[in-house]
């Protein structure tokens, strides 16, 4: 399974700004809600999260400590 941005369906208003900014075509509009398709092309640029006016997209980082 490939980690992908998470969409909060209750916050999403279907404006589609995130689709315009996405370089990997992972985001699509279906029934006025954004859906995410898994793709290795997603580089976690987080631009979808940046442009969303509703705060409906989360690109959360996992923080790990490298073992010596």
């Amino acid at each position, binding site marked *: 399974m490939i*980690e992908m941005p998470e969409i909060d369906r209750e916050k999403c208003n279907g404006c589609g*700004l995130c*689709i*315009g*900014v996405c370089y990997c075509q992972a985001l699509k509009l279906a029934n006025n809600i954004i859906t995410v398709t898994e793709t290795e092309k*997603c*580089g*976690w640029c*987080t*631009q979808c*999260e*940046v*442009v969303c*006016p509703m*705060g409906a997209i*989360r*690109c*959360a*980082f*996992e*923080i*790990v*400590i*490298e073992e010596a």
Partner: protein
Amino acid sequence: MVVQIEILKSLPYCSGLSTAELDAIREFIFERTVGKGEIILLDGEPAEAIYFVVSGVIKIFKTSMEGKEQIITILRPRESFNDVPIFDSGPNLVSAQAMTPVVLYGIKKENVEVILRDYPQIAPNIIKVLAGQMRHLVSLIEDLSFKNVLGRVAKILLEPPGGDGAVRPRLTQQDMAAIAGTAREMIGRSLKALEGYGVIKVDRHRIVIMDKKALQEIAGLAT
């Protein structure tokens, strides 16, 4: 394409104007379509027009001589840019780039003067918009000048709040900004700086702490 009255009505600049007044102003407005990634205007070049975002998203930024980019703000529909150089007759203050396909409405400098002369009731709207931009800029200056954002971000990476010790919570850049009490733009800048120092590595959705001791020193947690 014809400039639409309904869109003009939604612009903060046009708040309170009648349909007849908007209909008269619309002859001064041109539409411009911009492709994703296209540069709309460059910092330092002569200012030609004020722009309003109709659809899409714009990045407003400045670039240093060394090529380092500082995002000033992200603009969405109904917001304006290039206001200041049009009003003070100076060159463009910032650069603007389309993050998505964008449609803009623009008013050329000479026509802004005509509109202000013939429809002075627009002036309070402009003052309100500029005041909002000023407030945002002062907040950014405060962050850049006074706050040790780098140290705060380092601390968040070492001790992300909300974890129970064993499980480290996952955080977005917006989460980190809220925790650090700063703007999201400062988080991206800080992560890049920490990566440049070699203390972390950003690997897609993972931030890997490579040098915990160095990160603790940056965070002011070193013993």
